[in-house]
């Protein structure tokens, strides 16, 4: 007999019944206190310029307006930067650095009144030249928002010079809007003294607490931040909620009334950061077998107007520019470029996808150059014995890449299907097919080592019910469910006894963002640590009463046994309470063994790696560029899964989100520096009719984490996002068929139908222009 809801079981999301009945409470659903006011923002309308005058009289006079707040009205600092670099003003005061930068806030009786009033500001600017993209920023002298990183091992120049083959190339990699379905919002409720309580849709309550405290000029102890759940986060609520929480809090304290700020979707998309777009320039040297000898790469990122998280994001791009491949001699350099755009930020994978995709493109280039199946080239370059050192000098000790790929090759019937695709294309029709198998190796841990800590608070009440709180936030990923499973397993009680409550800074302090896929690894361990403390007290007490050693106390499915006497859990706890045993404990965890020296570019930044692979097959209409994904097979490693149902959902969702990044999601700024794809009408995330027609997703059930993580599981949030690279390279192959695979089409991303069509046209027209005429006739 086992308990209901222990670890390694399929278990539904703890809020599922509420989700389907509309009863799950998101921040905007919290009953507003009487007297709640609504704030909104006035935004800049130039990409770069000096403010010459700002007239807010019409805003103040608008119906329903209670207050207008500018930088002068802030009690503390006009800064919401997440990293202490003080380079991100809440309100632009003199110089505007992107279109959509907040200038002031207006507070009114209704949200509608506040929005209408905000539009009445009269602002004049002296416009200055702007650089909104990577090319323009480089042309303007390539200013950086944060110090760059170089990763280096061996001597790349001589190794490159000695290589039998060399290819130079470049790849443009597009950004991505998070498109969390629930937009940014905060509700601030003033309290006595300097206190303020904030309900905020955030992945990082502790950071909101600190930034609000700075803006109010009060100690952190006066600010409490709470989030029960988010309607999606994906990294977009790791720092980007700061400004909105600050405005709500400042207004609430100033007016002594509750204030809510909820952004409209268009303003949310224009004024919050996104995934960084990159330009990679690479050179690879390799031998006749396709084995990589040397890689030299530059990674230019559009970071936006300030640093935000661009330092660690561009670092992580370099950390993943090897993906699963050994580079004997290597040098990789990041260029975190300042641009006159919103400051780009965390997004699932955190730069990793932009690095990894370049490794995959390098492999594809080699394969086309040598006329081989790219899978052979991939296998020839996997890390292995004696070839296991990364460009950051961490040894890869838990490598299961080859096992994962071998199994997927077999279960997806890759070889026969690839032959069928080649045969199909050989017929020379309009519809061309492509198939690609791409691997993923992803490093787990925050590269800022100090973030790898977590706290938890576990209460056992005298009726035997258990309340758990931890520093992680729930954004749909099932973190609370997994942590509750860990607690149920620890006490050997059914999960129905365990309730996880809203994440809040007054229960567990000094938390890290729920990010870097680390939520379960860190918070699960912290919760377990608290459970073990309570169990130790209970065991000592029960053993002492029975005159037995503590080992005689066993927490079992039937109850707690002391020697041969078994007592029902609730009765046991009731007795412990009556005998004055402390039934509450805090827990703590810090990831062991990791270290990283950014100055030398050496260390062990990652505790372990997660692995996965996918095969995608696509059909492309070469006359229109339209395509569809016919089938995708995935095998992904989550170690010993805590909850396979939840993990499968993460893998599927991450793949489709990654597919959107690489295919349909195009961010487009006009020549004035204004984002024109600021709503779902023009910015296209995948819909139900876009996903693979056949979608076979499996977890590598045989895998166990070699490190002692929580129940030997592995993190799952980010790694599967990059499985979508197989779609891009399958599209690449379908296009390449037009000239007999003689050239790698080098599709940039997103590979929109427009881009695919242009790639088709380039291949059709370049080698034999006469053929274009034939088609024209």
């Amino acid at each position, binding site marked *: 007999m086992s308990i209901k809801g222990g670890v390694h079981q399929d278990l539904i999301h703890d*809020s*599922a019944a509420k989700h389907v*009945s509309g009863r799950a409470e998101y921040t*905007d*659903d919290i009953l507003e206190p009487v007297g709640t006011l609504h704030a909104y923002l006035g935004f800049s309308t130039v990409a770069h310029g000096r403010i010459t005058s700002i007239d807010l009289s019409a805003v103040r006079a608008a119906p329903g307006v209670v207050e207008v707040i500018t930088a002068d009205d802030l009690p503390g600092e006009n800064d919401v930067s997440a990293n202490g670099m003080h380079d991100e003003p809440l309100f632009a005061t003199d110089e505007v650095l992107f279109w959509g930068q907040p200038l002031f806030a207006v507070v009114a009786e209704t949200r509608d009144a506040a929005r209408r009033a905000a539009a009445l500001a009269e602002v004049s600017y002296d416009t200055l030249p702007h650089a909104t993209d990577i090319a323009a920023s480089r042309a303007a002298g390539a200013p950086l928002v944060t110090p760059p990183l170089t990763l280096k091992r061996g001597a790349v120049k001589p190794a490159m010079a000695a290589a039998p083959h060399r290819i130079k190339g470049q790849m443009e990699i597009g950004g991505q809007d998070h498109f*969390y379905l629930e937009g940014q919002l905060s509700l601030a409720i003033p309290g006595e003294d300097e206190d303020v309580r904030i309900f905020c849709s955030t992945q990082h309550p502790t950071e909101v607490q600190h930034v609000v405290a700075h803006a109010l000029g009060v100690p952190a102890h006066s600010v409490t931040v709470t989030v029960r759940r988010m309607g*999606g986060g994906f990294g977009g609520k790791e720092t980007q909620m700061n400004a909105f929480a600050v405005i709500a809090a400042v207004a609430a304290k100033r007016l002594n009334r509750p204030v809510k700020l909820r952004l409209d979707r268009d303003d949310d998309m224009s004024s919050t950061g996104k995934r960084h777009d990159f330009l990679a320039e690479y050179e690879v040297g390799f031998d006749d077998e396709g084995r990589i000898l040397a890689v030299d790469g530059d990674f230019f990122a559009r970071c936006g107007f300030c640093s935000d998280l661009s330092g660690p994001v561009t670092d992580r791009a370099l950390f993943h520019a090897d993906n699963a491949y050994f580079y004997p001699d290597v040098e990789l350099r990041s260029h975190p470029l300042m641009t006159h755009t919103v400051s780009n930020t965390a997004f699932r994978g955190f730069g990793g996808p932009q690095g990894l995709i370049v490794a995959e493109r390098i492999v594809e280039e080699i394969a086309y150059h040598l006329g081989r199946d790219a899978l052979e080239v991939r296998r020839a370059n996997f890390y292995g014995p004696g070839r296991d050192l990364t460009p950051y000098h961490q040894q890869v000790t838990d490598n299961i890449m080859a096992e994962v790929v071998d199994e997927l090759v077999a279960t997806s019937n890759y070889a026969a299907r690839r032959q069928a695709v080649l045969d199909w294309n050989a017929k020379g029709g309009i519809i061309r097919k492509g198939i690609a198998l791409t691997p993923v190796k992803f490093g787990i841990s925050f590269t800022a080592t100090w973030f790898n800590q977590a706290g938890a608070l576990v209460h056992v009440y005298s009726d035997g019910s258990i309340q758990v709180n931890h520093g992680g936030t729930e954004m*749909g990923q099932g973190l609370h469910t997994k942590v509750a499973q860990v607690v149920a397993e620890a006490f050997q009680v059914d999960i129905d006894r365990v309730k996880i409550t809203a994440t809040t800074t007054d229960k567990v302090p000094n938390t890290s963002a729920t990010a870097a896929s680390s939520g379960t690894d860190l918070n699960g361990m912290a919760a377990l640590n608290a459970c073990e403390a309570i169990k130790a007290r209970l065991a000592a007490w029960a053993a002492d009463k029975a005159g037995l050693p503590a080992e005689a106390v066993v927490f079992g499915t039937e109850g707690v046994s002391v020697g041969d006497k078994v007592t029902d859990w609730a009765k046991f706890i009731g007795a412990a309470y009556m005998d004055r045993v402390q039934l509450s404990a805090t827990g703590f965890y810090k990831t062991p063994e990791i270290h990283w020296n950014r100055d030398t570019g050496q260390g062990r930044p990652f505790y372990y790696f997660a692995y996965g692979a996918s095969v995608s097959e696509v059909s492309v209409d070469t006359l229109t560029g339209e395509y569809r994904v016919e089938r995708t097979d995935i095998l992904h490693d989550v170690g010993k899964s805590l909850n396979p149902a939840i993990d499968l959902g993460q893998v599927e969702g991450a793949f489709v989100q990654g597919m959107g990044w690489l295919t349909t999601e195009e961010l487009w700024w006009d020549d004035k520096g204004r984002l024109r794809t600021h709503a779902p009408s023009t910015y296209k995330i995948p*819909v139900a009719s876009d996903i693979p027609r056949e*979608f076979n997703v499996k977890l590598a059930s045989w895998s166990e984490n070699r490190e002692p993580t929580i129940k030997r599981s592995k993190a799952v949030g980010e790694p599967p996002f990059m499985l979508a690279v197989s779609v891009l390279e399958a599209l690449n192959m379908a296009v390449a068929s037009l000239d007999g695979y003689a050239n790698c089409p080098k599709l940039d991303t997103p590979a929109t139908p427009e881009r695919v069509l242009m790639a088709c046209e380039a291949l059709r027209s370049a080698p034999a222009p006469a053929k274009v005429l034939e088609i024209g006739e």
Partner: protein
Amino acid sequence: MSKIHVTTTINGDAVEFLADPRETLLDCLRDHVGLTGTKEGCGTGDCGACSVELDGTLVCSCLVLGVEASGKSVQTIEGMATDSELHPLQRKFVEHAALQCGFCTPGILVAAKSLLDRNTSPTEEEVRYWLAGNLCRCTGYDKIIRAVMDAAAELRGEAA
């Protein structure tokens, strides 16, 4: 602007509220009637999170004025389950783990029910295209499609 007295039926109950004539049905449901299961994702009719039925027609409630509900019947997510039992679609979404953050879930369920009310045995392709107006950023849709197909089978009386 002076408010208008709206008399309507929501989930079978007679409901009255006062609405600014510019207010959307979505805002009226959430702010005046206290039915917060219907969500705003985009406010421009492109994401489907605010889906409700108005006299049996599937609409984005952000594109309908509250006053337009006058004399009509509105069906929201809150009316899908009975007091004691989830609708088969809701139950199948739970069983198939066809949700993550849950924010799009009410709109998708309302849209899916609207499909099954019209077509008791949709093909997988029909389900995909019917739901193409409902954005989900978490799940990748596959489990949603499975859940709808499974619920349709159960509603037809077929064994799952």
